[in-house]
């Protein structure tokens, strides 16, 4: 046992993690509640999960959310990676200060303002609100997060590898695709996952930019929560938590295995 880990330290760590996890655990436990009252335990039941699956409105919203998430995360990853390349490599071009500002500003912009400004844009160009406007909005704010994640990896990357590939006859794009991309891939994947979960989570920006027929899952959950807490929402939340947690754990396991493999190949050389 580490002699520095005093009882006080242990208590504060246990307290901190209880605070972080107890509400989530309670939410999950009460999704299996047979009683209709969320806060009174009426025995174990999976009733609310079947109720959730037969709720057409919820299922439609889940489908919209999945499509918006997949589309926006993918486009945001491409644009964000390009933005990261620009930030790290192209230190001199006209309007670089503006570019840097535009990449970082959305990170600190309150969601209500991002939502409002995009809505005003869509209204003034007469773009009908719905699936596409939500996707465009999600791409715009999540590409900045992708850019930051990929940038942090690119900073430590040795550019001479790519230069060597170009000297050996690769076009700049080939050199990027064959040499740089595999190296920064973990960061790109992490960026995609971040963009996907940001899109999955977003309530405020979607509420501003969405139109009829494109209600996302958070919007649906929000409108039901305003009417009161129900075990059915607990069930939806539990499924979402399970989905995201599984994704994060699988990703970190893959990452770990890659690192072990890399260490092994390095040792072989």
């Amino acid at each position, binding site marked *: 046992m*580490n002699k520095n*880990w005093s009882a006080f*330290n242990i*208590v*504060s*760590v246990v*307290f*901190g*993690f209880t*605070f*972080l*996890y107890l*509400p*989530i655990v*309670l*939410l999950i436990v*009460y999704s299996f509640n047979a009683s209709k009252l969320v*806060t009174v335990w009426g025995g174990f039941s999976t009733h609310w999960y079947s109720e959730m699956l037969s709720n057409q409105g919820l299922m439609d919203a889940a489908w919209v959310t999945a499509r918006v998430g997949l589309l926006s995360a993918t486009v945001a990853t491409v*644009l964000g990676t*390009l*933005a990261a390349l*620009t930030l790290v490599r*192209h230190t001199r071009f006209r*309007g670089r200060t503006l*570019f840097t500002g*535009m*990449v970082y*500003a959305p990170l*600190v*912009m*309150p*969601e*209500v*303002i991002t939502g*409002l400004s*995009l809505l*005003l*844009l869509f209204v*003034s*160009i007469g773009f009908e609100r719905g699936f596409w406007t939500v996707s*465009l909005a999600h791409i*715009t704010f999540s*590409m900045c997060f992708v850019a930051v994640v990929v940038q942090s990896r690119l900073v430590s990357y040795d550019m001479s590898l790519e230069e060597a590939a170009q000297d050996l006859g690769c076009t*700049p*794009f080939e050199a*990027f695709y064959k040499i740089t991309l595999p190296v920064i891939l973990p960061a790109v994947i992490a960026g995609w996952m971040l963009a996907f*979960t940001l899109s999955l*989570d977003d*309530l405020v920006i979607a*509420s*501003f930019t969405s139109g009829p027929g494109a209600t996302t899952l958070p919007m649906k*959950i*929000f409108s039901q929560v305003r009417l009161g*807490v129900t075990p059915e929402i607990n069930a939806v*939340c539990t499924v*979402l938590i399970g989905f*995201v*947690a599984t*994704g*994060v754990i699988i990703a970190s396991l893959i990452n770990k295995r890659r690192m072990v493999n890399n260490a092994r190949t390095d040792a072989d050389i």
Partner: protein
Amino acid sequence: MGSFFKRITIGLPYFWLCILFLLPFLIVLRVAFSEPVLAMPPFAPQFDLSEGWQGFVQSVSQFTTYNFQFVFEDSLYTNAYLSSLRIALISTLLTLAIGFPLAYGMARSPMTIRPILLMLVILPFWTSFLIRVYAWIGILKPEGLMNQFLMSVGIISTPLRIYNTEIAVYIGIVYSYLPFMVLPIYATLEKMDYSFVEAARDLGCSSIGAFWKITARLALPGVLAGCFLVFIPAIGEFVIPELLGGSQTLMIGKTLWSEFFNNRDWPVASTVAIILLAILVVPIVLFQNAQARATEANR
């Protein structure tokens, strides 16, 4: 670097952000200086983007500061800004009070369990904000789990009224933003050389004295970063005050939302947004300066 690939690398994200970030922002600015009218969209004068830059310039020349006067004169808005700042500040201090011991305990923990603890702090980042706030409703409600527990144990005899008050908002913000506080503090404490504290103790410092003179001082950059990372987003927060704070809790994000969705007053909503951004610039610049100083010190 090939010129075509380079042009795409810079041009594509640049173009995208100009159209979907810069232009919308300019429109908000323009609408903030427009008059509200009963029409769709509800502001005047309309500007026609089909006339291009000229049309934009022309519409800029007919602006009115009516909305700014309105927002500054109505105490509702001033109170909402002040109360947002107050709630964000109190929540930041509470987050620090819970986050620092947690980060400190993690940094002192045995090497073998540190990656697991770190993972446990990061994991809530990935789970939905909305869900985590929702989870508290069931706990804090008058007939909720906390009151049930406290009453069954016999600590209280009547339910505590926390849900739909400012206290619930504090709890929500502390809970949602705790990882933002813990991670930067943990990062500085983990690098810290603990032998400094031991040396101070050997030289006669009390353990509390050594903590203030050594640990607290070395952790200061992390503490500052954590505080800004909680304070800045907390000011414009909407979901937490809406779901936990009830109608009496005043925060500017909520005001903007209801101005837009309930009153359909787009010019005032835009004005509220512009003033909010002007307020946010102060902590953001301070944060950047603190970060720059921290990087400088690390060199």
